[in-house]
Structure formats: C-alpha cells, structure tokens
C-alpha cells in the first residue's frame, strides 16, 4: 500500500509538468500569432506600424523563443504571478481568483444538493428492487442524464423567472441568483449519483455478510446503517470527487446562460477575444485542480480498499 501511495505521488509532478507544457503550447500549436492577437484584442482592427508591432513584441517577451517563454511562464506561475490580460490589462491572477470563487461556490452547492437527494433516493430504490419505486427512480435518473444544461436552464428560466416570476432570470447578486444555476448544474451529477448509489447498494445487499447479518435477525434499518452503507459509499465518494473536478471545468454553459462571472465564462470570453494569458492561466487552474482531485481520489481508493492494485490491474 505504501508503495502504491508513493508511486502515485511521484507521478503527480510529472503529469503537472506535461499538462503545463500542453496548455502553454496549445494556443501556439493552433497557429495564432500572439502579437497580432494582442493588437486585435487591444485596439480592434486599427492599422499599426511595423515599429509599434515590434515594440509590443519586445514588451510582452514574445521576441524570445518558445522554450524561454515557457520557462518564464512556469516560473512566474509558481510565484503566483500570472501576467496581465491582453484585453483588460488587469492582473490575470485577480481575474482568475474572482472567477474561481464564484465557480467553486456554485459547484459545491450543486454537488451537496446532488448528494443530499441521490443518497436516500438510490438507497430507497435498492432496498425494493423491481418495485414501482425502483422503476420511477431509475427512469427519472435516466431522464436526468439526457437533459443537458442548455435545455434545463432555459426551461427553468421560462417557468420560475418568466411565468411564475419568483426568481431572477440571470446575474449574480445574491443567494436568490444562485438557485436556478445550482439546480441546472445538479441535474446530471444527481442522476449519476442515484444510479451509482442504487447499484452499489444492490451489490452490497446481496453480499454474504449481509445475508448472515440478516439471518441473525438484525433489523433492516440497523442492517443498512451499520453494515451496508459504509461499503456502498466507496464508489459514491469517488464519483463525488471526480464530479467536483468535472463541475469546476464544466460550468461554462451555465455561466454563459445565467451571466455568471465564473471561471468558465472568463475562459469563454478569453477564447473569443484571443486573450492568450487568460486562456492559459484559466486552463492551468482547472487542469491543476483536476490533477489534484484525481490523485486524491486514487489515494482515497487505496486507503479505503487495500485490495485494489494501482498500475497493472487498475481499471
């Protein structure tokens, strides 16, 4: 077990390094001339002289080779200096941190909502397999998987904001503004959590040790709480951590629809404007989170279940 933990941890910096390289090179690999991107971003299509273009190139260190630029970028990143936006010229660090705060609030709300509903629902269905409750829960979760955010959000807006006029349509100015986006974001994780809880619970309830406990005359409530729940929760916990990473990187559509100043929306705007430092920093933050969360999940898995072997037989 210690070996596996160490192995996983030594991989962490390697994956971070390669990921940072990919992210840094991505805008260049697509053939974007970054100097021209800056000019377009800053002054629109106005014509500039050769001389001023050259000055800008030197000012932004773009006259150096890519390896030098990469080293400078990583060095500054490690010190927390992410450079300045090409468009607004504001420090990228401030922009990203502000967006991250919004997106993480939203993601955690959606995740807690999903767990709170999915756990009881999945367990309820698993305890009565084949019943109409099981059928309704399974069907609802299948429907939930098939409803994307851009279908869910307009319908919620139409119902709760336009027709009923209970909630604001868009914006980010207080708790009321969080309800519809959180509801939209929670749909898919809720559906997946319910299915996973149900399947895991069914598997555990069919295990031998549960049958023994039942044979000893243990009450169904105690049986679930004491014996079944703990083991059924392992796959659900891992799924939760993976969804946290997915939500942090996947809230762009919700943020665009509801005009929320989160990380996804910032990257979307940066992409449309060709704001390369902001794109790189935003991607790097999301990917770094995903790497950390993936590693934590693996570690959690090893600790919770020593029978799992990383590497050769990991699926």
């Amino acid at each position, binding site marked *: 077990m210690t070996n596996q933990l160490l192995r996983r941890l030594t*991989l962490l910096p*390697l*994956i971070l390094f*390669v*990921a940072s390289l*990919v992210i840094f090179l*991505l*805008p260049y690999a*697509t*053939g*974007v001339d970054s100097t021209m991107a800056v000019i377009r971003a800053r002054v629109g299509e106005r014509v500039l002289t050769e001389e001023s273009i050259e000055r800008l190139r030197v000012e932004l260190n773009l006259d150096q080779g890519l390896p030098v630029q990469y080293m400078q970028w990583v060095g500054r990143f490690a010190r927390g200096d992410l450079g300045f936006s090409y468009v607004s010229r504001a420090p990228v660090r401030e922009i990203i941190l502000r967006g991250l705060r919004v997106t993480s609030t939203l993601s955690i709300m959606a995740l807690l909502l999903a767990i709170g509903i999915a756990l009881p629902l999945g367990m309820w269905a698993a305890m009565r*397999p084949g019943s109409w409750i099981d059928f309704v829960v399974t069907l609802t979760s*299948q*429907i939930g*998987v*098939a*409803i*994307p*955010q*851009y*279908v869910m959000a*307009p*319908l919620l*807006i*139409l119902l709760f904001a*336009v027709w009923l006029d209970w909630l604001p349509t868009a914006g980010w100015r207080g708790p009321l503004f969080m309800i519809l986006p959180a509801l939209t974001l929670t749909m898919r994780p809720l559906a997946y959590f319910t299915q996973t809880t149900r399947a895991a619970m*069914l*598997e555990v309830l*069919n295990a031998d040790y549960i049958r023994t406990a039942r044979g000893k005359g243990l009450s169904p409530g105690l049986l679930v709480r004491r014996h079944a729940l703990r083991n059924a929760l392992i796959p659900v916990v891992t799924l939760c951590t993976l969804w946290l*990473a*997915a939500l942090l*990187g*996947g809230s*762009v*559509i919700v943020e*665009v629809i509801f005009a929320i100043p989160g990380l*996804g929306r910032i*990257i*979307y705007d940066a*992409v*449309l404007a060709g704001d390369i430092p902001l*794109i790189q920093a935003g*991607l790097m933050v*999301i*990917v770094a989170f*995903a*790497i950390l969360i*993936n590693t934590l999940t693996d570690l959690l898995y090893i600790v919770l279940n020593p029978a799992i072997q990383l590497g050769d*037989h990991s*699926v």
Partner: protein
Amino acid sequence: MRRWPTTIYLGGAVLALILLATIGAPWLMSAHPNTQVLSDRLLPSSTKHLLGTDHLGRDLLARLIYGGRFSLLLTITSVIVAAVVGTGLGALAGWLGGLWDEMLMRLVDLLIVFPGIIMALVIAALLEPGFGTLLLALTITGWTPYARLARALTLEVGTMPYLEAARALGVSQFRIINRHVIPNIIGPLLAMSFLRFGHVLLTIAGLSYLGLGAQPPTPDWGAMIAEALPYMQRVPLLLFVPSLAIFLTAFSVTIVGQGLMLLFDPKQRRL
C-alpha cells in the same frame, strides 16, 4: 445469452426513427430549412407551417428535421473514430504489457484531466469552427475511456484457458487479437459506445449553443435553442421543439447503452 431488456428495443426504435427522419429530410420536407420569409416571422402553427416559423420566418418543422444532420453525423463519426482508436490502443497495451502499457496508460492519465467541453471550446475557437476541427477536438480526449475499458477487458480475457491453448498452438498474435480477444470484449465496448454517443451529442449541441459548433445558417438543435431564447416568452414552441429533439435522442441512446451494459455485465446478470 439472456433475454434482451425491453429498453433496448424501445430506445432503438426511437433512435431509428430519428435517424431515418434526419437522413430522409430532403424527401420528407418540401420546405427548405433556410428559406427566410421576413413577413412570416414567429407565426403560430398552421397547415402551411405545421410547427409555425422562427424569428426569421423559417419553417420550424423543416429546421427540426434538418437540425440533427450536423450534430448526429459529427457524433457518429467521432464515436466511431474514438472507439476504434481507443479500443485498438487499449487492447494493444493490455496485450503487450510492459513499457508500452505503462506509456499508454500514463498518456491516458494525462488526457483525462483535460475537461472535454473546455478543450473542445478552446480548440474550436482557436482554429476555425467546423466539422474537422470539432472532430479533432472531440477525438483527442474522447478515445481514453475506450482504451481503459479495452485494456482491462484484454487483461481479463488474456488469462482465459482458450487463449493459452491458442498460443500453445502457435497462432499468430495478430490472429489471436483479431479472432479471440476482440470478439470477447466487443460487447461492453459497444455498450460504452452508446453511452458515449449520448455524452458526445450533448457536448456538440452545447458547442453549437455557444456558437462554436454548427455555423449559421446551418440548422442545428443546439443553435436553435440559443436563437429561441429572446423569443421564448412569446413563442415557447421555438424552445421546446429543439430541446425535445436533443433530449429524446440522448435519452433513447442512453437507455440502449444501459440495456446493453446490463446484458454484457456478468455481475448484473444475476440480479
């Protein structure tokens, strides 16, 4: 093999209908999806326009029927490419083992941390949005789940006695993979392809919604939702129609996938 779950037939039938309508659009519809009649904007349903017209006076039914062409063709192409590449590499890694296996699986570990929609967004925006760009963006991250599954299945199949027998008989590696390994792992991979189909379709429609998928005036369900938003209070049908199309396609493909998974998963079979 046990009885096929009814959901497979049900989902399969709906899916077949949607695909047939999409392919047969030019023969089904007399109205062209891009013909604008600005005097006929936002009309309610009538005998001339069964579902009414949109904000540019285009026939909504025609746009609905044509609206799946871009997304569905791209989804099917992308799923097939990703499945073939992923399965091939995964099965090869599981079969060869050693350094090849290690390198490929670390590559998978690396790619899996890049969130699909953001990567597709960045690549689609930096290159020109279009069919080829999107196919590239979706395939770069899309093949990894197949590789993981194919590798795990190959490892499982690899220890079976009949493979040992084949190896002892001196059957070539290529023939073993082609004749013995792949047929035995194809079921779960097929199930995964259907589940990924739903996922990829929703991603593509999402990119179209954001303006980075199908470009106007190409009719596309995702873009139709985005176009409907300013008018949804006056004509909710403009929103409901493409929403329902996306949902029905994703739903039917998902229940087929989950049905197939049930069919091929030996653990689930007992339940």
